[in-house]
């Protein structure tokens, strides 16, 4: 794959690059970076646009194998590149779950065949995500996983989680936890607070997240393991991560666009597209998440893309499944809601995700794989869920006006998505 990206503002904060230059891609790799490059290859005019190292969404559910009516590796990959992501990390809660090398190998081979985005599988911590015994982590590493997590089934057994934090160090693998004490959250369907009281819906208290984060941070510090907190949602959890980082623990954390954008008020009309886990929380929690983004406590923006077939989201609120799609709205919401300096945005969507997961880094340097996300920070657009590349339609952001968009995505030198005016 050859391509010459002309006249863009090339921005890679990790490599201290910020200038208007051309990038010549040959055979899927960056061959040279400089002004006035010429070559007899296809050109992409990036004048007025920002060329960034390719974005990486480290929390995505692709549903294949097992629930292909909601999403496949092909459609999830298409949604990823349409949202500006060159790569996704796929959570292991497939059917069967990705708890061994054969499922890992299947996901990787199917992604090579059908997905325009790179797909990096995350392996389960425990066999069958049951929280009882360790999965074959080493064999899955050989097959290509980039992290381990039991995803929506948090590891309640403290001893097993300690073992996972210890064992994963052998492979320099992050251990990712969805932090939720399942006893405290049992039966809950939304944030516990004034809205759950009024709506008569069973609450998931903030303490369900906080107690788990607290336990995990202690285990991470004492084991020295590489620990990553998925989708932070509460003020106290942000504060605990901030303190653990100050104390030198190897802890990183992510936030989703819906958690820094919406509050539990969105549930008021029993919209099942406002049902997710962790739940949308209070305005005070949203403020805390934004503080955590601003001061670097939170490292990553990840979508927790969770497609569900419309039949399931049409159920009663307390029976509908948790989760929303997010690959195509994440970048637009990050731009619109956070108004971060561009280098910080790129750090949260590309450099930090690459640093946390066990991947070969890419960026804007000669010899790198040519994975690029091209941004128009002033592009005004409206999200239309009916045009989504995902197989599912469960987004609360349909019809939202957003400013800032990924307008082209390049994976391995190939222009896999383009949305020019």
């Amino acid at each position, binding site marked *: 794959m050859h391509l010459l990206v002309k006249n863009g503002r090339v921005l890679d904060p990790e490599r201290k690059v910020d200038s208007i230059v051309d990038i010549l891609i040959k055979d899927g790799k960056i061959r040279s970076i400089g002004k006035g490059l010429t070559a007899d290859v296809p050109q992409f005019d990036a004048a007025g646009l920002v060329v960034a190292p390719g974005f990486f969404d480290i929390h995505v559910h692709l549903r294949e194998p097992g629930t292909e009516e909601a999403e496949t590796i092909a459609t999830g990959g298409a949604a990823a590149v349409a949202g500006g992501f060159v790569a996704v990390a796929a959570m292991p809660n497939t059917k069967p779950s990705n708890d061994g090398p054969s499922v890992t190998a299947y996901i990787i081979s199917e992604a090579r065949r059908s997905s325009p985005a790179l797909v990096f599988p995350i392996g389960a911590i425990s066999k069958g995500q049951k929280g009882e015994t360790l999965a074959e982590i080493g064999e899955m590493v050989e097959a290509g996983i980039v992290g381990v997590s039991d995803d929506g089934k948090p590891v309640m057994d403290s001893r097993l989680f300690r073992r996972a934090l210890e064992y994963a160090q052998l492979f320099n693998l992050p251990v990712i936890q969805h932090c939720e004490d399942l006893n405290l959250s*049992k*039966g809950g369907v939304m944030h*516990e*607070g*004034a*809205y*759950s*009281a*009024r*709506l*008569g*819906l*069973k*609450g998931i*208290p903030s303490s369900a997240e906080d107690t788990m984060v607290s336990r995990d941070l202690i285990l991470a510090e004492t084991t020295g393991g590489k620990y990553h907190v998925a989708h932070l949602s509460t003020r106290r959890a942000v504060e605990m991560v901030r303190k653990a980082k100050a104390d030198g623990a190897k802890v990183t954390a992510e936030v989703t666009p819906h958690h820094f954008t919406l509050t539990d008020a969105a549930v008021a*009309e*029993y919209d099942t597209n406002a049902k997710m886990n962790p739940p949308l929380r209070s305005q005070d929690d949203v403020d805390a998440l934004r503080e955590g983004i601003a001061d670097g406590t939170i490292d990553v923006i990840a979508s927790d893309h969770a497609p569900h077939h419309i*039949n*399931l989201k*049409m*159920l*009663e*609120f*307390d*029976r509908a499944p948790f989760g929303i799609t997010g690959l195509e709205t994440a970048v637009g919401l990050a731009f619109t809601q956070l108004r971060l300096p561009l280098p910080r945005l790129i750090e949260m969507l590309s450099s930090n995700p690459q640093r946390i997961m066990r991947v070969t880094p890419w960026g804007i340097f000669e010899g790198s794989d040519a994975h690029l996300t091209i941004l128009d920070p002033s592009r005004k657009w409206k999200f239309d869920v009916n045009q989504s590349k995902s197989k599912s339609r469960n987004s609360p952001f349909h019809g939202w006006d957003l400013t800032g968009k990924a307008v082209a995505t390049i994976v391995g030198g190939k222009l896999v998505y383009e949305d020019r005016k």
Partner: protein
Amino acid sequence: MKRKDLLGIQDLDPQEILDILGTAETLQEISTRPIKKVPTLRGKTVINLFFEASTRTRTSFEIAGKRLSADVVNVTAATSSVSKGETLIDTARTLDAMAADCVVIRHGSSGAPHTIARLTKARVINAGDGAHEHPTQALLDALTIRQRKGRLDGLKVAIIGDITHSRVARSNAHLLTKLGSHVWLCSPPTLMPVGSCDLVTTNREFLHRTYSMEEAVSGADVIMLLRVQFERMDESFFPSTREYFRCYGLTRSKVALAKEDAIIMHPGPMNRGVEIATDVADGPYSVILDQVSAGVAVRMAILFLMLGGQS
């Protein structure tokens, strides 16, 4: 009635509530006639769609509709599940296709009537959804209180029991505070929902909370008991029914703390010996049967206001 549906008391303004109560009072007389029927809603179809067992509320709606000459159809539906195929939405569309004018829905899931209402042309009346609201119960309670006390403003109303799981408590808290009663929610700490201090959105200073039954009933004009909903108790909220009765059961000695002319209410069905002593339930201050007859009048009023104006 201007609004299409009656989904909860929280949405209503005080005048709308007073209009319903006033209409109910004028319709009460019909139920005392030898021939208890007027032709007002002839040709209108009311479907009682009950996903939860109910005798009292369903019968009350059925009688209310029939006294107004509406055709009332009772549907006892199984709770939807994906494995069974039909979702709530399919059910709603089916009923709409049958050209029902009004759907009265009772459902175990909070918000289910809202989903139905969004998708149907028929007017929807919430006859109780999960732990959310039971607006007609609050209206009939208000009618009962007003007829006994002559007013609602300035009264002290104690609502005692399982607040967390009670749609009756929520609807009554909204309605009574809107009309100027002081509502005291009283429950064990484990059954007082987190966030309930912000339960009502208007007249918030009229809502009080306490764990002490003595504080709640002292000087009360109205004592309203809630049924302990064992079927919703999947965890331990209190050690035993015996201990519950000791702390929160209404006995004669507790009644003595209330005003001399206090009335005692219960939405039914009662657990005698759990939330209320039998001698209290059957005592002279009990208006539990008045509530039942007020229920028919209130439901006639709502059906009349929703279906009577149109032709």
